[in-house]
């Protein structure tokens, strides 16, 4: 998994790409630290270029949410497609995150 982040005003948009699986915790840890340090209220994780996610990947998204709650920032998941979209549906992530197309 790779990511690129971009800040505009009070929003940080992070574009994730590739496969997001159990081996990506190092990259994700960095990402969470960046999100935390940005101190921005609205964080958008753009998943449109993720082509596969496993349960560990979902777990890491939940962790991002926990961290977001600590710093009172909201996390939106945007643009999930195909397998990623189905996983978010199965795991009922709509009850935990703001989802956008």
């Amino acid at each position: 998994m790779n990511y690129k982040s971009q800040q505009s005003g009070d929003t940080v948009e992070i574009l994730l790409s590739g496969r997001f699986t159990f081996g990506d915790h190092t990259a994700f840890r960095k990402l969470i630290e960046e999100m935390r340090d940005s101190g921005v209220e609205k964080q958008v994780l753009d998943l449109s270029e993720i082509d596969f996610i496993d349960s560990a990947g979902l777990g890491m998204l939940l962790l991002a949410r926990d961290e977001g709650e600590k710093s009172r920032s909201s996390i939106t998941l945007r643009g999930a497609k195909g397998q990623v979209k189905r996983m978010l549906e199965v795991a009922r992530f709509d009850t935990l995150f703001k989802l956008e197309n």
Partner: protein
Amino acid sequence: MPDGQRRPTLAVAASLGAETVNSFLTGNSLFPDDASNRATVQYGGTVEDFAADLRYHACLLPCPTPNRWLDALFRINCNVFVELFPNLDLGDLGPLRTSLRDDRRELVVCLSTQSAYHLPLARKFVTALRQRNIIGDDIAPSVELAVQEAFSNSVMHGNMELNTSGRFTLDKLNILADETRKRLAHPFYGGRAIIMAARHTQKGRIEISIHDQGPGFTPSDDDGTFNLPGDQSTFGRGLPLIRSLCENVRFGRGGRTIKMTFPGHAQANTNPFIANPVTPASLPRNGIGLARILVADETLISRESLAAYLKIGGFGNLAFARDGEDTLAQADWFLPDMVILDLMMPKMDGFAVCKALRADPRFADIPIIAQTALAETAGRTKIFEDGATDLILKPVNKAELLARVRIHLENRLLVQQLRSYWERTQSELELARNMQERLIPRADYYRTTGAHYGLSISAHFQTSSELGGDLWGLLPLDDQRLAVWLVDFAGHGLGAALNTFRLHSLMSSDETPHDDPGAYLTALNRHLKKLLPVGQYATMLYGIIDRQDNLFRYACAATTAPVIGSAGNPDIRFLDGSGVPLGVIADARYDTREIAFGCTSFLMLYSDALIETELDNGETLDPARLQTLLQKILMDPEETGDLAAILTGYFLDHTPAILQDDFTLVTLQSKPR
């Protein structure tokens, strides 16, 4: 042939070196007996070095295995892939030793934990199963997810013995990341093997097993519900998810093996690595009287009256079953042409029997006549959903029974005749396909030729469901100039393939000078117009790489836009592919265009399947997406080298196993000096 007499052929990554390979082979852990000592070893620097028409008994992957070598799983004609890493100790891991049976419906991959951790193994494994027609495209997403979850459990909890239970926190993640890094580098944990294997079961299912060398894990009694959000983290909560994705999950070797069963794939066999399809038992051609009929009914009196009716009707080749399980057992040896099935039976009811029979490729299309006293319509509708061909009501009326038996057996006979006709046509098409593939340059030829011009040439060619109309070739003009061409005849099928033969002989016999692309296409078009029936046409690119003048000069007839660029530079260009298609009008004229082609340049040619095939995310690689993808590849420091191989790997990962159109991709990259 007994194993002892075999002489295995091995495809081996050259980077392993002869010494390592020899000591591994004499270590005798891969093959039984002394077969290893007699192995023929063929070395290759890349996956593309191994000829597609050669059969290998095992492929030894480099250590650590780079991503690119995983494409061997679907590009090398072999079923056993093993990374040769220093601590490789197969121990009690048996699947490799039995693999000399050489069953082409199996796939075995053995990697070190160190390599496996970093590789998209689940995806490549599933792509290989799809490409070999072992599983259908339809279930591939579920299989991939189940394999991914099981694989991550085997790697993380099994071989690396990492504990990821409990709620996930940032602190835990940090500890996990550090510990993962340490254990991967540790010879004990990182040097354990992980084996992924797929095979057909006798019941027509696919079993995928993953074996690790950890301490073993005993799954708790799980209620099987998949309930992700909640107190527990999702990490390591894969088992309920796996259970929801496959038919059956079992554990073996004290919890160090997980076996998952998936539905089989009852499609026509198109496994590129298997020559002859398995033919199901066929009905006697001389009529329906000899048809084998299996009568399944709990009561003796019903069986006897059905038998009496059938004998009066001239059907004497009968077998009987008393309950559901008996029905399956009888079917297994009797191979019936028809089953008359009572729905209410002990042990296993008729609905379940019907489903089980349909899942077995041998009985996927035999007539099954259900008999029932059920008055309610729900059960009667359901049995059709479960695969019954017809339904008769009890008590059975003789005339009605015989009429239905006859009509269904006659239908089956017709279907079989059609199928045998289809199979004959298929084998002839197969022959034509082989002939067509022989027109395509072989890897050793284009590599040697390319090297002479300082080019590394790579190509992938795959015909579609039917015969196709793609063809490409090289033509050395002199020391400094190499011509390359790619043609795509409209449509596919026999007509398009015949046209590729026409063109090939025309190009070989033609007197027109080859050194002016525009003039060459103009002349070729004039000839082709005479040969091609009205309505048939081709798109074509003909170009010359000129090393002396540092130019690429080319002419196009409505071709896909050739891509040109430079190594390590994200600026790529789509060239102008426009022009009148060949064979449409006799006096079409083609201009020669030119563009700089220097000592770091590359050129990419492709048929429209690359940009028109729908990917698994519903999109196509339209020019904008193709450009993004190419730029990503060009700028990725880990993706060195072979552009066609990298792009093909991506393409095959994301497209159906059977393409609608021919797929051709050729890249010519300047070699670094």
